[in-house]
Every structure is written in C-alpha cells, then in structure tokens.
C-alpha cells in the first residue's frame, strides 16, 4: 500500500490488512481519471459529430437560403390586341403563338427609357427579364382573354444574372468585362430597385417548377415527386422484405453453411458500390423486365435492393439483442415460434429496426450513382403522373444543378440541398417519435 494520504474518510483503515486495499488512492485516482476521461471522450465525440453537422449545415444554409427568394420586376405591360390577336378571333391557338416576349420587352424599354433603335441597348435590357416571361404572360391571357387591350402591372421574373446580382452573388466592384452584368444594366437595376419596381419575394417556383435550363425558372417539382415515388416504393418494399429476411435468418433458418453464406452475402451486398446496383437495375428491370427507362418505379426498385442489406443487418442485430428468456417465456405458455417472434421478439426489436430503416432510407434518398445507370439523371420537363413516367430525384437534381455553369444554379444547388435536409429532418423526427414509443429496457 502506498503511503500517500488517503483521500477519503471512508477509508478508515480499521479493518487493516485485507480490507484497506480499496483505499489505494493512486489506483482509485487513476480509475476516476479514467472514468472522467472516458466520459470526456464520449462528449468530445458527440461534440465533433455535432460540429461537423453544424459546419455542413451552416455552409449549405449560408449558400442556399437565398434560393428561397427570387427577384421580380414590376412592369406595366400593355396587352396590345394588335400584337397578340391581330385577327381579333380570340382563337386559343393564335393566342398561344403570339410573341409575348416582345410585350414585356417593350414595357421594359418604356420603364427604363431604353432607346429601341440601339441593338446593344435592347439586348442589354432584354437580358434583365427572364426568358420565361412569355409563358407567364401567355398563361395570363389564356386564363383571362379579357385583359387583351388593357395595360396591367405584372410582376415578372428577373433573369438569373440579375437575381444573382441582386443577392450580391455577383461582385459590383469587378471590372465590367468580368461581370455578367454590365454597368449599364447595374444602373437600370438600381433605378428599378429605387422605384420599388424590383423586389425579392418568396420563391414558390422552387417547389412548383420543373426542370429548366434557366436558373430563375428551374424548380424541384419533378425531383420531389420522383423522390416521393422512390421513397414510397423503397419503404413499401424494403422494410417488409428486409425485416422478413432478418426474421427468417435469425429465428427460423437452421444454423449451417447455407445461412452463413447468406449472412456473408448480405453483408457483402451492403458493400457493393451503388453504381453496380444501377447496372443490375439496367440489366434486370429495364432490359429483362422491360420497364421504362428514367421511371421512378425502376429507381425505387433499384434503391430497394440497395437499402435491403442495411435494413436486414440492422434488424438482425436488434433481434439478437432480445434476450432468449423472452422467447422461452412465450414458448412456455404454448405460443408457436411464429407467434413468439411476432408477438414478442419483433416489438422488442422495433427501435433497432426503425434505426436501420431510417439509415437505409436516408441513404437511399441521397443516392445518385445508381440512378445514373437507369436514366434518371435526366432533364425532365413534364411532371410525372405515375411512377412509370420519366422523373428525376432530389439528389440527382442537386447533382445536375451542381454541374451547371450559370451562377444562379449555385444557390439553387444549396437550396435544393436544404430541401433535402428538411425532408431528412422530418423523417428523422418521425423515427424519433416511433423509437421513443417502442424503446424498452429490461
């Protein structure tokens, strides 16, 4: 025993030889330090993990929150009957064919005092509003032909570059030739802003628009719907299949070579790079089964196979953690094996199953590579009405926007990521609630 002063009055060394050993203060201090250190490690680990999360989210949100706002310009547009409907027949087809862009441009020239005879000036002014303005005006006319001949104040979308400039993504201080926005345009923008004819508002188009080659009109509708279909398919297939497979392997399968092979095989599937699943999907679902390319059904099936190993592994792990005495208790009152599993083991392993499912889903919702092989990395304009129609998915949209050249897509990329993270957060909160309901200690 060391001679160091004893640090606890508990250690009254009354019961000398044998009993005093716990008062080895050096050892005790070491153990206590060990304990503190261990807890600290845990805290540090959590702190690290959370700070990664915060940093990642921070950068994404910093880059992306502006995507939820959009610059528009208010123009007094004269719906000139001579321009729109020269014959005066109000024929829908004729109305659709009219040159609405011109109406907007003319309103703009008036607003800014542009000299219509200078081609350069005209072009510079035209570049302020979105090329999509014609669809907007056409839709207005189509829904209410009575506005023909009147002048309406219309908020039209500013072009991507103007939007980026208004959000400070293009540096005003740069020399003109290095900017997408000329000095002339800047002065116009300043003028519009000063007069209140240029404002930022919430960008509903981000959710309702489909793919577009211009950042200001590009939206996530197709991707959201595609991801929704995919997730629906993945949840409906991978959870029952995965849980069933795990139950079979853990509770019913005889322990032998074959189950070993299956076990290894499932673990192995989890390591197969996701693009290989894409190859599989291409070979099996598209070439063999004849399902259409680019369809979210195929995407869902491929990601189901991709998610399955995760669900199976997590489920098996939590099934093994259920103590055998619970199974015995059930069998002892005359429950069959199937009953004991479904009545007792499964409910007890639900938290683990939920975790596995969530991790699998979270992984599936962020997957791009396999979708590349089955044609979902695509430009899709039409909103899919069923899982058999061409669609994209959120991560794919993020991937495609990330590789776009235009400045406006940079914030769109981050904005779409925020949307994805929002969905993840919702899924996680759901899982949290479920897990809480089923968690038990015994």
């Amino acid at each position, binding site marked *: 025993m060391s001679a160091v002063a004893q640090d606890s009055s508990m250690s009254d060394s009354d019961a000398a030889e044998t009993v005093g050993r716990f008062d080895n203060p050096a050892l005790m201090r070491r153990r206590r330090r060990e304990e503190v250190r261990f807890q600290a490690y845990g805290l540090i680990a959590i702190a690290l993990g959370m700070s990664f999360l915060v940093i990642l989210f921070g950068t994404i949100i910093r880059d992306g929150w502006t995507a939820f706002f959009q610059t528009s310009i208010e123009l007094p547009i004269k719906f000139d009957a001579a321009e729109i409907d020269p014959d005066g027949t109000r024929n829908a087809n004729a109305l659709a064919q009219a040159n609405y862009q011109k109406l907007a441009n003319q309103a703009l020239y008036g607003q800014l005092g542009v000299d219509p005879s200078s081609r350069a000036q005209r072009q510079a002014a035209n570049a302020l509003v979105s090329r999509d303005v014609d669809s907007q005006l056409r839709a207005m006319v189509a829904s209410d032909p009575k506005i023909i001949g009147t002048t309406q104040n219309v908020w039209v979308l500013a072009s991507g570059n103007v939007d980026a400039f208004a959000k400070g993504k293009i540096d005003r201080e740069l020399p003109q030739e*290095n900017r997408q926005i000329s000095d002339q345009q800047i002065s116009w923008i300043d003028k519009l802003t000063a007069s209140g004819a240029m404002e930022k508002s919430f960008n509903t188009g981000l959710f309702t628009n489909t793919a577009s080659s211009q950042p200001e009109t590009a939206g996530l509708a197709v991707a959201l719907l595609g991801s929704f279909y995919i997730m629906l398919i993945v949840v409906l297939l991978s959870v029952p299949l995965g849980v069933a497979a795990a139950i079979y392997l853990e509770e019913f399968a005889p322990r032998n070579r074959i189950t070993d092979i299956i076990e290894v095989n499932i673990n192995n599937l989890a390591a197969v790079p996701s693009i290989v699943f894409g190859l599989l999907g291409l070979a099996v679902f598209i070439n063999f089964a004849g399902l259409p*390319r680019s369809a979210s059904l195929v995407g869902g099936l491929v990601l189901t196979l991709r998610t399955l190993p995760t669900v199976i592994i997590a489920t098996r792990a939590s099934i093994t953690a259920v103590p055998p005495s619970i199974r015995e208790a059930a069998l002892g009152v005359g429950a069959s094996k199937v009953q004991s599993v479904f009545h007792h083991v499964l409910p007890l392993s639900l938290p683990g199953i939920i975790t596995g499912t969530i991790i699998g889903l979270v992984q599936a919702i962020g997957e791009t590579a396999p979708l590349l092989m089955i044609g979902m990395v*695509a430009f899709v*304009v039409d909103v899919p009405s069923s899982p058999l129609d061409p669609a994209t998915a959120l991560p794919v949209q993020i991937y495609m926007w990330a590789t776009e*050249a*235009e*400045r406006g897509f940079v914030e769109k990329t981050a904005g779409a990521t925020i949307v994805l993270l929002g969905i993840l957060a919702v899924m996680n909160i759901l899982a949290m609630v479920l897990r809480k309901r089923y968690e038990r200690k015994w």
Partner: protein
Amino acid sequence: RDQVKIAGSSTVFPYAKIVAENFAKANAGLKAPVVESGGSGAGLKQFCDGVGEDKIDIANSSRRIKKGEQETCTKNGVADVVEVKFGYDGIVFASDVKGAAFAYEAKDWFNALAPEIVVDGKLVANPNKTWKEVNAAFPEWEVVAYIPGEKHGTREVFEEKVLVAGCKATGAEKLIAEKLQAAGTAEDKVKSAAEKACAKVRKDDGGKHAIDIDGDYTETLARLQANKESIGVFGLAFYENNTDKLRVATVGGVTPSVETISSGKYPVSRPLFFYVKKAHVGVIPGLKEYAEFFVSDKMIGEDGPLAQYGLVPLPEAEAKAVRETVKDLKPLAPLS
C-alpha cells in the same frame, strides 16, 4: 411512347436541354423530350443497343461516333444513323480572375506538362517546376494544371491540339520518333506511336503538376478557387458564364470567343454531335420535329439561345448542309 428519349454527352447536355425546353413550348401537342446526361460513350452504348420502343432515339456526343461503335450499332440492327453536327465547343485555359495573365503558345503547355522535353536538342526529364521556368514571361507559379480526365472527350482535343502541337513545335516529336526507330518500332507505326508519346502527361512529384479532373467544370472551378495559383481547362460556355471568377488565357495570341473560334483563329475547339436513329422516325412522335427544330436557325443560329449560352455556331454553309441532312434523314456512311 409519346416522348423522345435522348442520352449522352454531358457537354451536349446543356444545349439539348435548351432545345428540349423550347421544343415543348413551340409544339403544343408534343411533350418535351427526356434528356439524360451520362457521357458520350454511355449514350452511344444505349443508342446502339437496338431499335424498339424501350431504346433511346437520340444520342448526344461530344465526339464523332467510332468505327467500332458503328459496327456494334449495325450488328444490333441500328442500321441507319443520322449524324448531326450542330456546332463547336471552344476549349479555354483560365486562372483565377485576380491572378496573372497568361499568353500561351502550344509549346508552353508541352514544356510544362510533358514528361520529357527538349533541352539543348536533347530529350530530358521535364525540369520545369514553375511557369516562369517554362516561359520567362509567365509568373512564378508552380505548374499546377487541372486538365480533363481521360474519360472526357475534351482530353483528346487537348492532347491533339495542344500537347501534340507543342510537341511538334519544340521538335520533341522528331527526337521521340528517332528514339522509337532506334528501338526497332516498325516504320509505318513510328508516326502514330510518336504522336501518342507526345500526348503523354508528366506524373512526377506525385502527379501534382497535371491533375486529371473526371468531374465537370464546376469541379475544376472549385479546385481553382481552392488553389488560386493554378490553371484550369474549361469549355467556352462555362467560362462565359463565369467571367467574374475566371481570367482567360490567350493561345497563340488569340483570345477565345465565339467569333474567334468560328472563324478558326482560336485553335482549340471540337465539334459537337447528335445521332438520330432513323428507324424510330415516324414511330416516335416528335422525333423528326425535334431534330429539325434543333438545327433550325432559331436554335443554333448566331442569335439563338445556344449561341447565347456559349455554343460556337456552325459556319453558314455547314449549317445549311446539316439542315439538309436532317430533312432527308441522310444516314451516316460506314466509317473507315
């Protein structure tokens, strides 16, 4: 199927998108085509997979179809393929907007990136570590160039129009050819073998001088911003959309632009194609219309949205020929 399906090059993808979008607006009864991006090779592979409703109708490509690919096509029953060349893609060199200005000659690139260069009439391992050593007019930056990875069609153009040209200009090619001949390479193969050797890129210093980029130009841009003293290779369209971040270098004294490229003054560019499956015309609604719409003056003309985006338009004569080809659906003759 009531919708055209397209796949292929990611370089052509942005152009195809713009056309697809406008196509739908211009044709009320027809749906917008679905355009996939996955690389020319992947696109052509699907394209040559056969005819049928479940196969794609058009393949975009940033290079010409290869002989082997055409053979596969024929073998799979895709006999008649219409080749449509719709414009050029300029390839530019750029550094960070606040960085130094570069005025390249092809030989500068060769001297910077080749594994062996000519010094005093002899081939030696490339000793150049900084751009200043390559060319005294350049700043003292370490040689760090982000060049397209080997999977990119751009790489081929870079090698052919820059490295091999530089190789020839510095006289390295001759030395290499001599060396090959001495090593016993057959006479008729020496030329191509030497050209191939010229296209090699140095790998010394852990490969930090020439860094392959497999991703897109956004990746190159990100890397450039992470390391401001470096040079990247971009497409003209990408550069034009990012002039506030990039400073373009001249090649042979010519600044790259739509005009200089279409006039042929700027040397580094490549044609862009798409291929139409003739068997699907008349079966898939909108296919022929799409192809015609694509090559119309409204799209690929000098004032069209593609040029606005950065496409180098075809010279008028070529454009006219292409329109003819599309109209008559003239199939591509077997390549030699």
